[in-house]
């Protein structure tokens, strides 16, 4: 599944200062569905290069990270249970940096 990931607010520093990542994520065999929960562990393993604790806490993003799926607050689509589709755009913005 092809997705566009964007990191901002300092989170890009965890992935070699690259803000926009065009990625192809494998879905679990036999399924064509991918949830945000799956995506987060995939990002953890494949995109984040340093200080993973700045991105995740427990099985979710760190509190204070704003997540938008296709411009839409993921709290409206079920947070970790949000189902992703081909060509979705997922944005992560940290708030834990200076203002």
């Amino acid at each position, binding site marked *: 599944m092809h997705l566009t990931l*964007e990191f*901002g*607010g*300092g989170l890009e520093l965890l992935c070699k200062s690259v*803000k926009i990542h065009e990625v192809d994520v494998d879905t679990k065999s036999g399924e064509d569905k991918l949830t945000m929960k799956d995506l987060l562990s995939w990002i953890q393993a494949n995109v984040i290069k340093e200080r993973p604790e700045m991105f995740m806490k427990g099985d979710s993003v*760190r*509190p*204070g990270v*704003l997540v*938008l*799926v*296709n*411009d*839409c*607050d993921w*709290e*409206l*689509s*079920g947070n970790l249970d*949000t*189902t992703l*589709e*081909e*060509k*979705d*755009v997922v*944005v992560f*913005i940290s*708030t*834990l*940096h*200076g*203002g």
Partner: protein
Amino acid sequence: MEGGDATRARRATVRLCSICNQRKAALKRPKTLEQICRECFYVVFEDEIHRTIVDNHLFKPGERVAIGASGGKDSTVLAYVLSELNRRHNYGLDLFLLSVDEGITGYRDDSLETVKRNEIQYGLPLKIVSYKTLYGWTMDEIVKAIGLKNNCTFCGVFRRQALDRGAAVMKADKLVTGHNADDMAETILLNILRGDIARLGRCTLITTGEDGPIPRCKPFKYTYEKEIIYTYAYFKKLDYFSTECIYSPNAYRGFAREFIKDLERIRPRAILDIIRSGENFRISSSTKMPEQGTCERCGYISSQKLCKACVLLDGLNRGLPKQGIGRTKGLNKSKDEENKNSSFHSKPCGTLDI
């Protein structure tokens, strides 16, 4: 990044905005838990800030107002919202952006670029004041004189006063900063943890320093950081960056920050409730409060004869740069030294002193 095509409509969880009932909801407001669309969000977001400004009589027509601009998200959104509201509601304010250049080689280049873009985008004049102008020393020169180990004391003290001093140099009547509701909740919590009753009493005020030369106010006092970030994400293409001190992040404040964010996730109203609690604390009349006076040398508020910046500067200028770090000796030894030193030590660099 528009998500409106046919495949998106398949998403089972599409909900309509609870205000207009027409467009797709895009944001869950932490303050009210309402689900609203982007268009309605901008209307309520700006309207709430306008109400805060009006209800608290933050400005008078004709005032010259400095917007403390760091290039970060809060001050960028503040500059945008204030210039917009000033026009729309005829506040009659003479607004300008005020930035501080600490004189750390390479460090401010990016953020000053951002502020320069804001100058053009919002049509607000930009004034940059340097540490060299304000203090006679750049941060690089200070580091050279005292070494890396102690420089965060200077960072914190100098940074805290820089905007106020810069606003005075630029003949402003008022200074506004982008401190938001999350910042305020964090500061209230920190002051409780430190037992800093004087600051606890002051830190919830929307306007401080009214008896001083330049009152300071915080139009975003009740504005959630989540909504500032959401606003920012759209008109800045996410290009902001950290403005923390490059030498040392503040661990203690970091923990308080994270605690606030954890609370927010469980119950978003917690942030507003901490602010309400802070506002409604009553300090018992038997609590001994430090006297508030002004610094003999520069006129900045100080509970001592000389303010911290002047003590540090005095040391630098006399070739005794360690003066004022740790135990205060000589210059200021008179008043409640115990109290002063404890709060002095626990204020690390780059803190938001609200």
